[in-house]
């Protein structure tokens, strides 16, 4: 099943973006074939509730898991309700993160790993 990765750039060599809701783009990737597409995040510009808007938006891509740095409580709730696994604390190169995911090195989190509004100002290099 496809996975979504919050990305700092439009390629597998870009870094994982630590932000979820306010992330500019996602990489939607099939871990078997490593085929991917880049999805500009329409949810990021929301005045409020960017995490919710973003989660609803990428859920439509039919994904099974999200790899990101930080995910707040609202987005986590939406993703969980849609049956999407949320894997937080992911950083570094996207290709390497996907390899770690495939080898089962990540476990999904049952709850948000950051508080409300966390990503409102988080930069790309924390």
């Amino acid at each position: 099943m496809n996975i979504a990765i919050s990305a700092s750039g439009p390629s597998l060599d870009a870094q994982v973006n630590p932000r979820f809701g306010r992330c500019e783009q996602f990489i939607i990737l099939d871990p078997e074939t490593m085929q991917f597409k880049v999805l500009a995040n329409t949810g990021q510009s929301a005045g409020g509730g960017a995490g919710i808007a973003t989660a609803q938006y990428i859920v439509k891509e039919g994904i099974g898991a999200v790899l990101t740095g930080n995910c707040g409580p609202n987005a986590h709730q939406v993703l969980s309700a849609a049956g999407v696994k949320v894997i937080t604390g992911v950083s570094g190169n996207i290709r390497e993160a996907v390899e770690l995911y495939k080898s089962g090195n990540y476990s999904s989190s049952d709850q948000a790993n950051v508080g409300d509004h966390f990503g409102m100002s988080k930069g790309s290099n924390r």
Partner: protein
Amino acid sequence: MIISIASGKGGTGKTLVATSLARSLMDTYSVTLLDCDVEEPNVHLFINPEITSTEEVTIKVPQVRQDRCNHCGKCSEACAFNAIAVLGDTVLTFPELCHGCGACSYLCPRQAISETPYRIGTLEKGSVAGIDFVKGQLDIGRAMATPVVRRVKQCRSDEGITLIDASPGTSCPVIEAVNGSDFCLLVTEPTPFGLNDLSLAVEAVKQLGIPCGVVINRAGRFNEAVEQYCRKENIPVLLKIPLDLKIACLYSEGITLADGLPEWKMEFKQLAERIMELIGERNCNTQR
């Protein structure tokens, strides 16, 4: 008559002016004092009112009846604030993001959404020595101050004088507090920050079409820039409160000028009279 007290910059003495004015006018007029600085309300510290009632301030947020909902997603699509999400057969609501516009419930094709109150703050009413007092307070962690301000303003009186203490700045909660006043008193201090923020506040009240006047607090040897600005903008400087250790001490203890230095009562009465004259001059055909 409604007089609002605003400033642009914080900490210039809005609350001191509002409470001193109330305590100076209470013998002559029936005074209603509304604390619309709902993020950091302080008026009560200066007048020590006896609180007679407390109620919750709420907005209406959606409540979904699962038995009627067919998960069509129209509510989520309609919500401009991302406060409701439909995922498969689950509907999630996020009341802290809801503005209470009612779009989801109105547009739901199956009438599956009713609205339920969601607390964002409190409203306290009370009185002290002839002053009716109302205070709004936003709950900790809540972002939306404007609906609380709106609720406090509903308590204005049509009789006598209503004084509104606004929050600093020029954004929505301030505009909500000041809008509809007959006059706006802008309290400033003679510093570059005070002047800069005064000019923003003046722009705001002009946009609302409300006549205004200036009080210079901590006035001293640096007043000239503010006075020059006021002359240029044709805004009257109605009162100067000097930079004075005695006044600073009273303020720090939460004592109004009318109570701590009774000679100021006359100054504040005259200030109110000047304001009445100014309003009379500007709209001589109003119901006054």
